[in-house]
Protein backbone atom coordinates (compact mmCIF):
# COMPACT_ATOMS: atom_id res chain seq x y z
CA UNK A 1 0.00 0.00 0.00
CA UNK A 2 1.81 3.20 -1.18
CA UNK A 3 2.16 6.09 1.27
CA UNK A 4 2.61 9.79 0.56
CA UNK A 5 2.39 12.86 2.73
CA UNK A 6 -0.41 14.39 0.66
CA UNK A 7 -2.95 13.28 -1.92
CA UNK A 8 -4.57 15.81 -4.21
CA UNK A 9 -7.81 14.55 -5.78
CA UNK A 10 -8.30 15.98 -9.24
CA UNK A 11 -5.84 17.16 -11.91
CA UNK A 12 -7.67 20.26 -13.04
CA UNK A 13 -6.31 23.76 -12.67
CA UNK A 14 -6.92 23.76 -8.88
CA UNK A 15 -5.33 20.41 -8.15
CA UNK A 16 -2.32 21.30 -10.30
CA UNK A 17 -1.98 24.73 -8.66
CA UNK A 18 -1.97 22.93 -5.31
CA UNK A 19 0.57 20.41 -6.55
CA UNK A 20 2.86 23.23 -7.70
CA UNK A 21 2.76 24.83 -4.23
CA UNK A 22 3.26 21.50 -2.44
CA UNK A 23 6.31 20.80 -4.64
CA UNK A 24 7.69 24.25 -3.81
CA UNK A 25 7.29 23.37 -0.13
CA UNK A 26 8.87 19.92 -0.63
CA UNK A 27 5.73 18.05 0.40
CA UNK A 28 5.76 14.66 -1.34
CA UNK A 29 2.39 14.02 -2.91
CA UNK A 30 0.42 12.56 -5.79
CA UNK A 31 -2.42 14.01 -7.83
CA UNK A 32 -5.04 11.34 -8.49
CA UNK A 33 -7.11 11.90 -11.63
CA UNK A 34 -10.12 9.85 -12.78
CA UNK A 35 -9.49 10.55 -16.48
CA UNK A 36 -6.81 12.58 -18.19
CA UNK A 37 -5.52 15.94 -16.98
CA UNK A 38 -8.25 18.62 -17.30
CA UNK A 39 -10.80 15.86 -17.78
CA UNK A 40 -13.98 17.84 -17.27
CA UNK A 41 -12.75 20.58 -19.63
CA UNK A 42 -12.62 17.89 -22.31
CA UNK A 43 -15.76 15.94 -21.45
CA UNK A 44 -18.25 18.17 -19.66
CA UNK A 45 -18.35 21.36 -21.74
CA UNK A 46 -20.43 22.30 -24.75
CA UNK A 47 -18.67 22.83 -28.08
CA UNK A 48 -18.92 26.61 -28.28
CA UNK A 49 -18.09 27.33 -24.62
CA UNK A 50 -15.48 29.95 -23.90
CA UNK A 51 -14.27 31.16 -20.52
CA UNK A 52 -16.17 34.06 -18.97
CA UNK A 53 -12.85 35.56 -17.91
CA UNK A 54 -10.41 37.28 -20.29
CA UNK A 55 -7.13 35.58 -21.14
CA UNK A 56 -4.95 37.85 -18.99
CA UNK A 57 -6.89 36.51 -15.98
CA UNK A 58 -6.12 32.89 -16.82
CA UNK A 59 -3.14 32.74 -14.48
CA UNK A 60 -1.79 29.81 -12.53
CA UNK A 61 1.06 29.68 -10.00
CA UNK A 62 4.23 30.49 -11.92
CA UNK A 63 2.39 31.00 -15.17
CA UNK A 64 1.00 34.33 -16.36
CA UNK A 65 -0.73 34.75 -19.70
CA UNK A 66 1.89 34.96 -22.44
CA UNK A 67 -0.19 35.02 -25.62
CA UNK A 68 -0.95 37.91 -27.93
CA UNK A 69 -4.68 38.19 -27.16
CA UNK A 70 -4.96 39.21 -23.48
CA UNK A 71 -8.54 40.39 -23.92
CA UNK A 72 -9.82 37.24 -25.67
CA UNK A 73 -11.56 34.30 -24.06
CA UNK A 74 -10.17 30.75 -24.20
CA UNK A 75 -12.31 27.94 -25.59
CA UNK A 76 -12.83 24.86 -23.42
CA UNK A 77 -10.36 22.81 -25.47
CA UNK A 78 -7.79 25.62 -25.26
CA UNK A 79 -8.23 25.59 -21.46
CA UNK A 80 -7.74 21.81 -21.47
CA UNK A 81 -4.54 22.21 -23.53
CA UNK A 82 -3.30 24.97 -21.25
CA UNK A 83 -3.90 22.91 -18.12
CA UNK A 84 -2.24 19.89 -19.74
CA UNK A 85 0.83 21.91 -20.71
CA UNK A 86 0.91 23.32 -17.20
CA UNK A 87 0.91 19.84 -15.67
CA UNK A 88 3.83 18.86 -17.88
CA UNK A 89 5.77 22.08 -17.24
CA UNK A 90 5.26 21.64 -13.49
CA UNK A 91 6.27 17.98 -13.67
CA UNK A 92 3.23 17.37 -11.48
CA UNK A 93 3.09 13.82 -10.02
CA UNK A 94 -0.24 13.02 -11.68
CA UNK A 95 -1.61 9.48 -11.66
CA UNK A 96 -4.23 9.41 -14.41
CA UNK A 97 -7.02 6.92 -15.00
CA UNK A 98 -7.46 6.50 -11.26
CA UNK A 99 -10.87 7.15 -9.76
CA UNK A 100 -11.06 7.75 -6.03
CA UNK A 101 -13.91 5.61 -4.73
CA UNK A 102 -13.72 6.34 -1.01
CA UNK A 103 -11.90 8.60 1.41
CA UNK A 104 -11.87 7.49 5.06
CA UNK A 105 -9.90 8.30 8.19
CA UNK A 106 -7.31 5.58 8.72
CA UNK A 107 -3.64 4.85 9.31
CA UNK A 108 -1.70 8.02 10.06
CA UNK A 109 -4.41 10.14 8.49
CA UNK A 110 -6.48 8.80 5.63
CA UNK A 111 -7.06 5.81 3.44
CA UNK A 112 -7.74 6.89 -0.12
CA UNK A 113 -9.35 4.01 -1.97
CA UNK A 114 -9.23 4.04 -5.75
CA UNK A 115 -10.24 1.66 -8.50
CA UNK A 116 -6.51 0.85 -8.70
CA UNK A 117 -5.70 0.32 -5.05
CA UNK A 118 -5.35 2.18 -1.78
CA UNK A 119 -3.12 5.11 -0.86
CA UNK A 120 -2.14 6.01 2.72
CA UNK A 121 -1.68 9.68 3.42
CA UNK A 122 -1.68 12.31 6.15
CA UNK A 123 -3.28 15.06 4.09
CA UNK A 124 -5.97 15.14 1.43
CA UNK A 125 -6.83 18.12 -0.74
CA UNK A 126 -10.09 17.64 -2.61
CA UNK A 127 -9.91 19.52 -5.92
CA UNK A 128 -12.36 17.35 -7.81
CA UNK A 129 -14.28 20.13 -9.51
CA UNK A 130 -17.95 20.84 -9.86
CA UNK A 131 -19.09 17.91 -11.90
CA UNK A 132 -22.74 17.37 -11.03
CA UNK A 133 -25.75 19.23 -12.39
CA UNK A 134 -28.35 20.53 -9.92
CA UNK A 135 -31.20 19.09 -11.90
CA UNK A 136 -34.50 19.14 -10.00
CA UNK A 137 -36.29 15.85 -9.43
CA UNK A 138 -39.16 17.02 -11.63
CA UNK A 139 -36.87 16.73 -14.67
CA UNK A 140 -37.40 12.96 -14.62
CA UNK A 141 -41.16 13.42 -14.94
CA UNK A 142 -41.02 15.46 -18.15
CA UNK A 143 -43.28 13.61 -20.54
CA UNK A 144 -41.78 12.17 -23.72
CA UNK A 145 -39.43 15.06 -24.35
CA UNK A 146 -35.70 15.24 -24.76
CA UNK A 147 -34.64 16.57 -21.35
CA UNK A 148 -30.94 17.08 -20.64
CA UNK A 149 -28.80 18.82 -18.04
CA UNK A 150 -26.44 21.56 -19.27
CA UNK A 151 -23.50 19.24 -18.48
CA UNK A 152 -24.69 16.93 -21.28
CA UNK A 153 -25.42 19.70 -23.75
CA UNK A 154 -22.94 19.89 -26.65
CA UNK A 155 -24.60 21.72 -29.54
CA UNK A 156 -28.06 22.43 -31.03
CA UNK A 157 -27.95 19.36 -33.33
CA UNK A 158 -28.34 17.21 -30.24
CA UNK A 159 -31.90 18.49 -29.84
CA UNK A 160 -34.91 17.94 -32.09
CA UNK A 161 -36.22 20.79 -34.22
CA UNK A 162 -38.93 22.82 -32.53
CA UNK A 163 -39.31 24.75 -29.32
CA UNK A 164 -36.91 24.43 -26.40
CA UNK A 165 -37.47 25.33 -22.78
CA UNK A 166 -34.18 26.41 -21.19
CA UNK A 167 -34.42 26.48 -17.41
CA UNK A 168 -31.98 28.88 -15.75
CA UNK A 169 -30.63 32.26 -16.84
CA UNK A 170 -27.12 32.39 -15.46
CA UNK A 171 -24.05 32.02 -17.66
CA UNK A 172 -24.88 28.53 -18.97
CA UNK A 173 -28.57 29.20 -19.47
CA UNK A 174 -28.22 32.44 -21.39
CA UNK A 175 -25.47 31.03 -23.62
CA UNK A 176 -27.36 27.85 -24.44
CA UNK A 177 -30.60 29.81 -24.96
CA UNK A 178 -28.83 32.18 -27.36
CA UNK A 179 -27.24 29.37 -29.36
CA UNK A 180 -30.49 27.39 -29.61
CA UNK A 181 -32.52 30.44 -30.64
CA UNK A 182 -29.96 31.18 -33.39
CA UNK A 183 -30.24 27.56 -34.54
CA UNK A 184 -33.88 28.19 -35.39
CA UNK A 185 -35.38 26.54 -32.32
CA UNK A 186 -37.74 29.00 -30.60
CA UNK A 187 -36.53 29.30 -27.01
CA UNK A 188 -38.51 29.92 -23.87
CA UNK A 189 -36.15 30.90 -21.05
CA UNK A 190 -37.21 30.43 -17.42
CA UNK A 191 -35.35 32.99 -15.29
CA UNK A 192 -35.04 33.03 -11.54
CA UNK A 193 -32.52 35.10 -9.62
CA UNK A 194 -29.59 36.08 -11.77
CA UNK A 195 -26.62 38.42 -11.78
CA UNK A 196 -26.79 40.86 -14.67
CA UNK A 197 -23.56 42.48 -15.85
CA UNK A 198 -22.48 44.17 -19.09
CA UNK A 199 -19.53 42.56 -20.88
CA UNK A 200 -17.72 45.89 -20.87
CA UNK A 201 -18.17 49.09 -18.90
CA UNK A 202 -16.46 52.36 -19.73
CA UNK A 203 -14.33 50.58 -22.31
CA UNK A 204 -13.02 47.85 -20.01
CA UNK A 205 -14.04 44.24 -19.49
CA UNK A 206 -16.32 43.93 -16.45
CA UNK A 207 -13.83 41.48 -14.93
CA UNK A 208 -11.09 44.07 -15.33
CA UNK A 209 -13.21 46.34 -13.13
CA UNK A 210 -13.97 43.61 -10.60
CA UNK A 211 -10.23 43.03 -10.39
CA UNK A 212 -9.22 46.71 -10.28
CA UNK A 213 -11.75 47.69 -7.60
CA UNK A 214 -10.60 44.90 -5.31
CA UNK A 215 -14.00 43.18 -5.39
CA UNK A 216 -12.42 39.88 -6.50
CA UNK A 217 -10.14 40.00 -3.46
CA UNK A 218 -12.93 40.34 -0.88
CA UNK A 219 -12.28 37.55 1.62
CA UNK A 220 -14.64 34.83 2.75
CA UNK A 221 -14.18 35.78 6.40
CA UNK A 222 -14.97 39.45 5.76
CA UNK A 223 -18.13 39.47 3.63
CA UNK A 224 -21.46 40.26 5.34
CA UNK A 225 -23.30 37.15 4.29
CA UNK A 226 -21.06 34.25 3.29
CA UNK A 227 -23.91 31.84 2.57
CA UNK A 228 -25.35 34.29 0.09
CA UNK A 229 -21.95 35.08 -1.44
CA UNK A 230 -21.19 31.38 -1.94
CA UNK A 231 -24.57 30.73 -3.55
CA UNK A 232 -24.56 33.68 -5.92
CA UNK A 233 -25.44 32.54 -9.44
CA UNK A 234 -22.71 32.89 -12.07
CA UNK A 235 -22.41 36.22 -13.87
CA UNK A 236 -24.76 36.46 -16.84
CA UNK A 237 -21.88 36.55 -19.32
CA UNK A 238 -20.61 34.90 -22.47
CA UNK A 239 -16.94 34.59 -23.44
CA UNK A 240 -17.28 37.08 -26.28
CA UNK A 241 -17.15 40.82 -26.79
CA UNK A 242 -20.90 41.42 -26.48
CA UNK A 243 -23.33 41.64 -23.57
CA UNK A 244 -25.74 38.72 -23.34
CA UNK A 245 -28.46 39.78 -20.92
CA UNK A 246 -32.19 39.15 -20.90
CA UNK A 247 -32.83 42.21 -23.05
CA UNK A 248 -30.38 40.97 -25.70
CA UNK A 249 -32.00 37.54 -25.68
CA UNK A 250 -35.47 39.00 -26.00
CA UNK A 251 -34.23 41.10 -28.95
CA UNK A 252 -33.22 37.81 -30.62
CA UNK A 253 -36.70 36.45 -30.09
CA UNK A 254 -36.28 34.47 -26.88
CA UNK A 255 -39.45 34.37 -24.79
CA UNK A 256 -38.86 35.10 -21.13
CA UNK A 257 -40.84 33.44 -18.32
CA UNK A 258 -40.43 33.26 -14.54
CA UNK A 259 -38.51 30.69 -12.55
CA UNK A 260 -39.53 27.07 -13.29
CA UNK A 261 -41.86 26.41 -10.37
CA UNK A 262 -43.43 23.04 -11.01
CA UNK A 263 -45.02 20.55 -13.35
CA UNK A 264 -48.67 19.64 -13.14
CA UNK A 265 -50.45 17.31 -15.55
CA UNK A 266 -47.82 17.89 -18.21
CA UNK A 267 -47.96 21.65 -17.84
CA UNK A 268 -44.87 23.55 -16.72
CA UNK A 269 -45.62 26.27 -14.21
CA UNK A 270 -43.56 29.43 -13.86
CA UNK A 271 -43.25 31.75 -10.90
CA UNK A 272 -44.92 35.15 -10.97
CA UNK A 273 -41.74 36.64 -9.54
CA UNK A 274 -40.07 37.50 -12.88
CA UNK A 275 -40.56 41.27 -12.50
CA UNK A 276 -38.98 41.17 -9.05
CA UNK A 277 -35.98 39.01 -9.95
CA UNK A 278 -35.29 41.38 -12.84
CA UNK A 279 -35.69 44.40 -10.54
CA UNK A 280 -33.29 42.80 -8.03
CA UNK A 281 -30.74 42.17 -10.79
CA UNK A 282 -31.05 45.69 -12.22
CA UNK A 283 -30.66 47.28 -8.77
CA UNK A 284 -27.69 45.06 -7.93
CA UNK A 285 -26.09 45.97 -11.27
CA UNK A 286 -26.68 49.66 -10.50
CA UNK A 287 -24.89 49.30 -7.16
CA UNK A 288 -21.95 47.48 -8.78
CA UNK A 289 -21.56 50.19 -11.44
CA UNK A 290 -21.82 52.87 -8.71
CA UNK A 291 -18.95 51.14 -6.90
CA UNK A 292 -16.91 51.18 -10.11
CA UNK A 293 -17.71 54.86 -10.70
CA UNK A 294 -16.75 55.71 -7.12
CA UNK A 295 -13.44 53.96 -7.74
CA UNK A 296 -12.76 55.54 -11.13
CA UNK A 297 -14.52 58.90 -10.81
CA UNK A 298 -17.14 60.07 -13.30
CA UNK A 299 -20.01 58.01 -14.52
CA UNK A 300 -20.47 55.52 -17.33
CA UNK A 301 -23.37 54.74 -19.57
CA UNK A 302 -25.91 52.41 -17.95
CA UNK A 303 -27.93 49.59 -19.49
CA UNK A 304 -31.66 49.93 -19.96
CA UNK A 305 -33.75 48.24 -17.24
CA UNK A 306 -34.67 44.66 -18.08
CA UNK A 307 -37.82 44.60 -20.16
CA UNK A 308 -40.48 42.39 -18.58
CA UNK A 309 -43.57 41.82 -20.64
CA UNK A 310 -46.53 39.98 -19.17
CA UNK A 311 -45.04 36.48 -19.15
CA UNK A 312 -47.09 33.30 -19.44
CA UNK A 313 -47.32 31.40 -16.15
CA UNK A 314 -47.95 28.02 -17.76
CA UNK A 315 -46.66 26.15 -20.77
CA UNK A 316 -47.90 22.78 -21.98
CA UNK A 317 -45.07 20.32 -22.46
CA UNK A 318 -47.31 17.91 -24.35
CA UNK A 319 -48.85 20.18 -27.00
CA UNK A 320 -45.87 19.79 -29.36
CA UNK A 321 -44.77 23.41 -29.04
CA UNK A 322 -41.90 22.43 -26.75
CA UNK A 323 -39.80 19.52 -28.01
CA UNK A 324 -36.93 19.57 -25.54
CA UNK A 325 -35.84 20.94 -22.17
CA UNK A 326 -32.34 21.95 -21.09
CA UNK A 327 -31.69 22.28 -17.35
CA UNK A 328 -29.13 25.00 -16.75
CA UNK A 329 -29.92 25.00 -13.07
CA UNK A 330 -26.43 25.10 -11.64
CA UNK A 331 -23.64 22.75 -10.75
CA UNK A 332 -22.38 21.24 -7.56
CA UNK A 333 -19.39 19.19 -6.50
CA UNK A 334 -19.67 15.44 -5.97
CA UNK A 335 -18.51 14.53 -2.46
CA UNK A 336 -20.36 11.22 -2.35
CA UNK A 337 -17.03 9.37 -1.94
CA UNK A 338 -15.94 11.44 1.06
CA UNK A 339 -16.65 9.33 4.13
CA UNK A 340 -15.40 11.78 6.75
CA UNK A 341 -17.75 13.64 9.13
CA UNK A 342 -17.39 17.09 7.64
CA UNK A 343 -20.95 17.57 6.36
CA UNK A 344 -23.96 19.44 7.74
CA UNK A 345 -27.44 17.95 8.18
CA UNK A 346 -28.19 18.53 4.51
CA UNK A 347 -25.01 16.94 3.27
CA UNK A 348 -23.18 20.18 2.50
CA UNK A 349 -19.44 20.12 3.11
CA UNK A 350 -18.49 22.44 5.97
CA UNK A 351 -15.21 24.29 5.65
CA UNK A 352 -13.57 27.49 6.73
CA UNK A 353 -11.85 28.88 3.66
CA UNK A 354 -11.13 25.36 2.40
CA UNK A 355 -10.00 24.01 5.78
CA UNK A 356 -12.43 21.37 7.06
CA UNK A 357 -12.87 20.59 10.74
CA UNK A 358 -11.22 17.18 10.19
CA UNK A 359 -7.45 17.72 10.58
CA UNK A 360 -5.64 17.18 7.31
CA UNK A 361 -8.67 17.41 5.02
CA UNK A 362 -8.93 20.37 2.67
CA UNK A 363 -11.11 21.40 -0.24
CA UNK A 364 -10.24 23.64 -3.17
CA UNK A 365 -12.04 25.04 -6.20
CA UNK A 366 -15.40 26.05 -4.82
CA UNK A 367 -17.11 29.42 -5.41
CA UNK A 368 -15.95 32.10 -2.94
CA UNK A 369 -13.79 29.52 -1.17
CA UNK A 370 -11.39 32.14 0.26
CA UNK A 371 -12.11 35.19 -1.88
CA UNK A 372 -14.49 36.15 -4.68
CA UNK A 373 -11.69 35.30 -7.13
CA UNK A 374 -11.91 31.65 -5.98
CA UNK A 375 -14.89 31.27 -8.31
CA UNK A 376 -12.59 31.69 -11.33
CA UNK A 377 -9.48 29.87 -12.59
CA UNK A 378 -7.52 32.93 -11.47
CA UNK A 379 -8.44 32.20 -7.84
CA UNK A 380 -6.60 28.87 -7.71
CA UNK A 381 -3.21 30.55 -7.39
CA UNK A 382 -3.82 32.37 -4.11
CA UNK A 383 -6.18 29.77 -2.64
CA UNK A 384 -3.68 26.97 -3.25
CA UNK A 385 -0.86 29.10 -1.78
CA UNK A 386 -2.89 29.75 1.39
CA UNK A 387 -3.90 26.12 1.82
CA UNK A 388 -0.40 24.81 1.07
CA UNK A 389 0.89 27.05 3.87
CA UNK A 390 -1.79 25.62 6.17
CA UNK A 391 -0.85 22.08 5.14
CA UNK A 392 2.85 22.53 5.91
CA UNK A 393 2.13 24.29 9.23
CA UNK A 394 -0.15 21.46 10.28
CA UNK A 395 2.40 18.82 9.26
CA UNK A 396 5.12 20.61 11.25
CA UNK A 397 2.89 20.81 14.32
CA UNK A 398 2.06 17.14 14.11
CA UNK A 399 5.66 15.96 13.78
Amino acid sequence: MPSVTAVVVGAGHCGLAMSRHLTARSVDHVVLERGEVASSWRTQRWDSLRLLTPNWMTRLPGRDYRGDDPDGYLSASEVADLVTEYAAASAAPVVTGTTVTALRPGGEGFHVDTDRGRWNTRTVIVAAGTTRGNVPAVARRIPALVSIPALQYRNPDQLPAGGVLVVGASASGVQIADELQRSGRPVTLAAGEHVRVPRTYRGRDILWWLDATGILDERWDEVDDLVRARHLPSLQLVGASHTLDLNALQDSGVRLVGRFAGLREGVAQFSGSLANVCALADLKLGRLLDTIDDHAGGRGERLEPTLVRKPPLELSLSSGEIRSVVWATGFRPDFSWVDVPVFDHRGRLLHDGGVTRWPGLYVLGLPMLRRRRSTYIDGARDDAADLAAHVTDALKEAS
Partner: protein
Amino acid sequence: MTITTTPIDNGVDVDALLGARAAFAETPEIAQFQWRSSVTWENGTHSRSEVESFYGFADEQAHHQSFTLDADHPLQFASQDKGPTPVEYILVGLGGCLTAGVAAVAQQRQIQLHSVKATLSADMDLHGILGADPEVRNGFSGVKVDYQIEADASEDDIRALVAQSQKRSAVFDIVTNPTDVTVTVV
Protein backbone atom coordinates in the same frame (compact mmCIF):
# COMPACT_ATOMS: atom_id res chain seq x y z
CA MET B 1 -19.86 71.35 15.19
CA THR B 2 -21.21 68.29 16.88
CA ILE B 3 -22.67 65.47 14.90
CA THR B 4 -25.27 63.49 16.73
CA THR B 5 -26.49 60.25 15.34
CA THR B 6 -29.90 58.92 16.20
CA PRO B 7 -30.10 55.14 16.25
CA ILE B 8 -32.19 53.77 13.41
CA ASP B 9 -35.37 52.39 14.91
CA ASN B 10 -38.19 50.91 12.87
CA GLY B 11 -39.38 48.86 15.82
CA VAL B 12 -37.89 45.67 14.39
CA ASP B 13 -35.58 43.60 16.57
CA VAL B 14 -33.15 42.53 13.85
CA ASP B 15 -30.75 41.05 16.38
CA ALA B 16 -33.51 38.64 17.47
CA LEU B 17 -34.11 37.65 13.82
CA LEU B 18 -30.41 37.14 13.16
CA GLY B 19 -30.15 35.27 16.47
CA ALA B 20 -32.91 32.95 15.27
CA ARG B 21 -31.03 32.35 12.00
CA ALA B 22 -27.88 31.50 13.97
CA ALA B 23 -29.84 29.18 16.28
CA PHE B 24 -31.39 27.46 13.23
CA ALA B 25 -27.88 26.75 11.91
CA GLU B 26 -27.07 24.87 15.13
CA THR B 27 -30.36 23.01 15.53
CA PRO B 28 -32.08 23.06 12.13
CA GLU B 29 -35.13 21.13 13.33
CA ILE B 30 -36.36 24.09 15.42
CA ALA B 31 -36.93 25.98 12.15
CA GLN B 32 -39.77 23.63 11.22
CA PHE B 33 -42.99 25.58 11.81
CA GLN B 34 -46.65 24.87 11.24
CA TRP B 35 -49.30 27.57 10.88
CA ARG B 36 -52.95 26.79 11.60
CA SER B 37 -56.45 28.14 11.50
CA SER B 38 -59.86 26.60 11.93
CA VAL B 39 -63.04 27.67 10.19
CA THR B 40 -66.74 27.22 10.98
CA TRP B 41 -69.59 27.86 8.61
CA GLU B 42 -72.01 30.38 10.09
CA ASN B 43 -74.69 30.96 7.47
CA GLY B 44 -74.83 31.60 3.75
CA THR B 45 -71.38 32.66 2.59
CA HIS B 46 -70.42 33.81 6.07
CA SER B 47 -67.76 31.81 7.91
CA ARG B 48 -65.74 32.53 11.00
CA SER B 49 -62.10 31.53 11.32
CA GLU B 50 -60.02 31.32 14.44
CA VAL B 51 -56.28 31.61 14.74
CA GLU B 52 -54.54 30.83 18.00
CA SER B 53 -51.98 28.03 18.15
CA PHE B 54 -48.98 27.31 15.98
CA TYR B 55 -45.95 25.03 16.18
CA GLY B 56 -42.32 26.09 16.08
CA PHE B 57 -39.01 26.14 17.97
CA ALA B 58 -39.65 22.42 18.56
CA ASP B 59 -42.74 23.06 20.69
CA GLU B 60 -46.41 24.03 20.72
CA GLN B 61 -46.84 27.80 20.65
CA ALA B 62 -49.77 30.20 20.86
CA HIS B 63 -50.60 33.80 20.12
CA HIS B 64 -51.24 35.84 23.28
CA GLN B 65 -54.92 35.71 22.41
CA SER B 66 -57.24 33.95 20.00
CA PHE B 67 -58.04 35.99 16.87
CA THR B 68 -61.43 35.70 15.20
CA LEU B 69 -61.85 36.65 11.56
CA ASP B 70 -65.09 36.77 9.62
CA ALA B 71 -65.23 36.13 5.90
CA ASP B 72 -68.26 36.77 3.73
CA HIS B 73 -69.25 38.18 0.38
CA PRO B 74 -70.64 41.68 -0.21
CA LEU B 75 -74.27 42.71 -0.48
CA GLN B 76 -73.84 42.94 -4.26
CA PHE B 77 -73.65 39.13 -4.28
CA ALA B 78 -76.81 38.93 -2.16
CA SER B 79 -74.65 38.07 0.86
CA GLN B 80 -74.62 39.65 4.31
CA ASP B 81 -71.17 41.26 4.08
CA LYS B 82 -70.11 40.26 7.59
CA GLY B 83 -66.45 40.41 6.66
CA PRO B 84 -63.97 40.78 3.84
CA THR B 85 -64.09 38.25 1.03
CA PRO B 86 -61.56 35.40 1.21
CA VAL B 87 -59.68 36.83 -1.78
CA GLU B 88 -59.34 40.15 0.05
CA TYR B 89 -57.70 38.24 2.92
CA ILE B 90 -55.07 37.15 0.37
CA LEU B 91 -54.34 40.82 -0.32
CA VAL B 92 -54.26 41.49 3.43
CA GLY B 93 -51.78 38.65 3.84
CA LEU B 94 -49.61 39.83 0.95
CA GLY B 95 -49.64 43.47 2.06
CA GLY B 96 -48.95 42.53 5.68
CA CYS B 97 -46.09 40.23 4.74
CA LEU B 98 -44.38 42.61 2.30
CA THR B 99 -44.72 45.56 4.67
CA ALA B 100 -43.26 43.64 7.61
CA GLY B 101 -40.44 42.70 5.27
CA VAL B 102 -39.83 46.31 4.26
CA ALA B 103 -39.49 47.28 7.93
CA ALA B 104 -37.18 44.37 8.75
CA VAL B 105 -34.94 44.90 5.72
CA ALA B 106 -34.82 48.65 6.41
CA GLN B 107 -33.74 47.98 9.98
CA GLN B 108 -31.09 45.54 8.81
CA ARG B 109 -29.82 48.07 6.26
CA GLN B 110 -29.91 50.93 8.77
CA ILE B 111 -32.56 52.88 6.90
CA GLN B 112 -34.95 54.98 9.02
CA LEU B 113 -38.53 54.70 7.78
CA HIS B 114 -40.98 57.55 8.27
CA SER B 115 -44.04 56.16 6.54
CA VAL B 116 -44.81 53.08 4.51
CA LYS B 117 -48.10 52.74 2.68
CA ALA B 118 -49.19 50.44 -0.08
CA THR B 119 -52.33 49.95 -2.07
CA LEU B 120 -53.02 46.48 -3.37
CA SER B 121 -55.31 45.47 -6.17
CA ALA B 122 -56.06 42.14 -7.78
CA ASP B 123 -57.90 41.68 -11.05
CA MET B 124 -60.29 38.78 -11.40
CA ASP B 125 -62.64 37.63 -14.12
CA LEU B 126 -65.72 36.13 -12.45
CA HIS B 127 -66.36 33.94 -15.49
CA GLY B 128 -63.86 31.61 -13.82
CA ILE B 129 -65.49 30.97 -10.44
CA LEU B 130 -68.95 30.92 -11.98
CA GLY B 131 -67.87 28.18 -14.35
CA ALA B 132 -69.03 30.29 -17.26
CA ASP B 133 -65.81 30.08 -19.29
CA PRO B 134 -63.40 27.16 -18.95
CA GLU B 135 -60.60 29.31 -20.42
CA VAL B 136 -60.68 31.68 -17.44
CA ARG B 137 -58.95 30.72 -14.20
CA ASN B 138 -60.68 31.05 -10.83
CA GLY B 139 -57.96 33.08 -9.21
CA PHE B 140 -56.44 36.47 -9.80
CA SER B 141 -55.34 37.32 -13.32
CA GLY B 142 -52.77 39.62 -11.72
CA VAL B 143 -51.90 41.45 -8.53
CA LYS B 144 -50.56 44.99 -8.26
CA VAL B 145 -48.89 46.44 -5.18
CA ASP B 146 -47.96 50.14 -5.17
CA TYR B 147 -45.76 51.36 -2.33
CA GLN B 148 -45.32 54.92 -1.14
CA ILE B 149 -42.38 55.08 1.22
CA GLU B 150 -40.81 58.00 3.04
CA ALA B 151 -37.43 57.09 4.42
CA ASP B 152 -33.93 58.46 4.86
CA ALA B 153 -32.65 56.70 1.75
CA SER B 154 -32.16 57.20 -1.97
CA GLU B 155 -34.83 56.22 -4.45
CA ASP B 156 -32.79 53.18 -5.54
CA ASP B 157 -32.23 52.11 -1.94
CA ILE B 158 -35.99 52.27 -1.34
CA ARG B 159 -36.61 50.23 -4.52
CA ALA B 160 -34.04 47.71 -3.27
CA LEU B 161 -35.87 47.49 0.08
CA VAL B 162 -39.10 46.62 -1.65
CA ALA B 163 -37.39 44.14 -3.98
CA GLN B 164 -35.61 42.41 -1.11
CA SER B 165 -38.85 42.25 0.86
CA GLN B 166 -40.49 40.39 -2.03
CA LYS B 167 -37.51 38.06 -2.28
CA ARG B 168 -37.84 37.05 1.38
CA SER B 169 -41.66 37.14 1.64
CA ALA B 170 -43.59 33.97 2.47
CA VAL B 171 -46.86 35.25 1.07
CA PHE B 172 -45.25 36.59 -2.12
CA ASP B 173 -43.83 33.11 -2.63
CA ILE B 174 -47.17 31.47 -1.86
CA VAL B 175 -48.99 33.72 -4.33
CA THR B 176 -46.42 33.50 -7.13
CA ASN B 177 -45.57 29.77 -6.95
CA PRO B 178 -47.61 26.58 -6.89
CA THR B 179 -48.18 24.93 -3.53
CA ASP B 180 -49.37 21.39 -2.92
CA VAL B 181 -52.74 21.45 -1.18
CA THR B 182 -54.46 18.36 0.26
CA VAL B 183 -58.09 18.67 1.31
CA THR B 184 -59.72 15.68 2.99
CA VAL B 185 -63.00 14.91 4.69
CA VAL B 186 -62.53 13.17 8.03
